[in-house]
């Protein structure tokens, strides 16, 4: 039932890899009159990894959370699959969220559930609650969950509790959960900020390769400029709630970084 509902939201003639996400004059004020996002506009093409860089508190997280409305935008529009996300009612929003996989800084796993249960949480948009309660997921979902765990290198951990894993392993589970949704867009909010440098590279590799393999765009918030240069097809620099740089990695110069982060000493 839920599957047909989701299918009907997509126009049958929608091109498979058209422009995937259009953000128009997106504004967010947590307190009236103090916008965190100043009418941000951004268009994400049908594929590739877009890194959003910028200092803490500049609105990167707010921007990415507005896209799936974990944060409610104040005004503006977000076009995704032919719908304006901002105007959707709750059921429509749920249907839209199924197509966006999200990866979090602190993994946001359900610690007391097993690894495979966490991955299967990615299907909760489709599986009714009583079946989830009985762990009666469709066999095809379970099979896919195992395949994804293999793909992220955690096949042997399927029945372990999530709180027994290391940070890098947890983030792999988080990625598998996002991919379990068969998303058309991956949102990652500082996915490597809680990880050591080596694990960060592995996690970024995993996100970039899985998104490329599925031919879907990924939007990744990050602090680390080097990681962004290495993995992104496009870098968006934000400062004080506005986009101040937008271009491929090789065009990002020190002068841009100065504008994004301010100060000078740290660049030397």
């Amino acid at each position, binding site marked *: 039932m839920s599957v047909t509902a989701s299918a009907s939201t997509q126009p049958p003639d929608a091109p498979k890899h058209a422009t995937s996400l259009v953000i128009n004059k997106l504004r967010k004020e947590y307190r009236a009159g103090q916008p965190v996002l100043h009418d941000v506009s951004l268009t994400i093409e049908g594929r590739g990894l877009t890194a959003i860089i910028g200092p803490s508190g500049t609105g990167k997280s707010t921007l990415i959370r507005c896209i*799936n409305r*974990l944060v409610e935008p104040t005004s503006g529009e977000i076009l995704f699959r032919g719908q304006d996300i901002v105007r959707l009612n709750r059921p429509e*929003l*749920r*249907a*839209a*969220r*199924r*197509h*966006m*996989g*999200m990866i*979090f800084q*602190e993994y*946001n*796993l*359900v*610690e*007391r*559930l097993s690894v495979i*249960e966490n991955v299967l*949480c*990615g*299907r*909760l*948009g489709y*599986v*009714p*609650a009583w079946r*989830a*309660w009985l762990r009666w997921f469709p066999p095809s979902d379970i099979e896919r969950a195992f395949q994804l765990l293999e793909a992220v290198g955690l096949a042997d951990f399927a029945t372990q509790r999530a709180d027994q894993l290391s940070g890098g392993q947890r983030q792999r589970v*988080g990625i598998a*959960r996002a991919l379990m*949704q068969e998303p058309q867009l991956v949102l990652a909010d500082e996915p490597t900020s809680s990880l050591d440098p080596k694990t960060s590279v592995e996690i970024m590799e995993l996100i970039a390769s899985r998104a490329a393999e599925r031919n879907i765009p990924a939007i990744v918030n990050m602090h680390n400029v080097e990681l962004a240069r290495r993995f992104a097809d496009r870098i968006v620099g934000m400062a004080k709630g506005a986009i101040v740089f937008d271009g491929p990695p090789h065009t990002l110069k020190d002068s841009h970084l100065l504008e994004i982060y301010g100060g000078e000493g740290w660049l030397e």
Partner: protein
Amino acid sequence: MSALPHGQPPRVAFPPNWPARLGMVVLVLYVAYASTILDLTWNRFVVGLQQGGKFLARMFPPDFAHDKVSLLLIGMTESLQIAIVATVIGIFLSLPLGLAAARNLAPRPLAWTARALIAVFRSLHPIIVAILFVKAVGFGALAGILALIVASLGFLSKLVAESVEEMSMKPVEAVRATGSRLLSVITMSVLPQVIPRFIGFAAYQLDSNLRNSALVGIVGGGGIGATLFTAFQRFDYDFVLTIVLAIIAIVMVGEIVSGWMRRMFQ
């Protein structure tokens, strides 16, 4: 790090807390005053002790006559049934009520309504609730069960609400982001965080319902309490002792079982 300049008073590490000291004095004075009002004298205590000694002497040995034991078994079985039925129903009702009262999940008006309801359930002692239900639905186990359900709801719902409010919202946010409905969010991200503690509470509630199920009988709510009350009125003090021993045994077994349950689900 320089020494204090001369002429400055020495630094005080533990400043006196005058309001607290004053409060203590007032409390002691009030207890003394209340004791005189209530005629709490040593003499009365000594007389009472003698009386108690006679009473205890009449209780021994406990009465294990065949007819008494069968009376005991009937009463005990009923009490046990009251306790278990009330606990199980209380558990099932307290989950939704507790979730509705959690301010981080439920909308404000719903949360406050649920909180008010819980406060009402908690404000009355099970015995008073039992008296009300005996009046409402008549003597017998039904009144006892209803009274203990109310008691269980008050206790369990409040603790459910509190543990839901203390849980991590991060997994909840993640499961919401997958596009799942509220019920799935609760099933897969709220309950896994809350259930282990909830089982501990439920085991404790079973314990306390076992004890209270003996009590509700005294006011007509069915079970061993009724038997106990009758035995008192007939001055069957040796049978009273038998019943008291049986209650102690049941409560201890209940404690062991609930401890075991808690360990199993940690």
